[in-house]
């Protein structure tokens, strides 16, 4: 298990943009499982949307990217890179995520290098897949 303090030591994102609460499983070089608890207290629900609070799809993608960053940092120990930039995202969204949901993230490595990585990404709520796709990002 990796808690928020250790997550913060691995990736540069901070409040209000840290999209992972906990890593539950990780196999270096292969996969990571993590989750984010979606709370009605989060500021952006005031605008997205006032009458129907919905966790933004872009934030689901961000949570996936952050989990992939943790996986990369834990897999390549001496990786000097501190910044990560998404270069390609192809994700299909199947259903909305709302306050009260626990967003489970599963990332599988397709290819991992010091330059960046290619990953298969998936998010689910209560074992139902809510988003799935492919993601590539570069390390700087």
């Amino acid at each position: 298990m990796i808690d928020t303090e250790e997550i913060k030591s691995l990736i540069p994102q901070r409040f209000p943009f840290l999209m992972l609460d906990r890593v539950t499983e990780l196999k270096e070089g292969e996969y990571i499982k993590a989750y984010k608890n979606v709370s009605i207290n989060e500021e952006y629900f005031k605008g997205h949307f006032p009458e129907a609070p919905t966790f933004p799809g872009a934030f689901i993608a961000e949570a996936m990217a952050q989990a992939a960053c943790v996986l990369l940092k834990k897999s390549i120990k001496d990786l000097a890179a501190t910044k990560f930039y998404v270069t390609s995202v192809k994700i299909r969204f199947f259903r909305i995520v709302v306050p009260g949901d626990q967003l489970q993230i599963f990332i599988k490595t397709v290819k991992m290098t010091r330059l960046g990585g290619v990953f298969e990404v998936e998010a689910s709520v209560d074992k139902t897949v809510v988003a799935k796709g492919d993601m590539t990002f570069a390390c700087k």
Partner: protein
Amino acid sequence: MPKVDDLTLEKELREIIAKIVEIEPEKITQDASFVEDLGMDSMMALEILAAMEKKYKIQVPEEKLGQIKNLKEVIKLTKEYL
């Protein structure tokens, strides 16, 4: 992985590259430079490498990324690991 004949390999690799670079397969000639002629960047090269590995169930070392510069080189590289 069973051996793939040269024509099929070329066709499949051209399709993989076209999908990643988002251009028509016909524009990917054997010698067209991925960077200069097709506008590819280094992360697209990584995606091509990953797609090659996945399609043919091969492992290509990171050091070979520099060889992903035109279709001819990609075919050569794939054959090396098949």
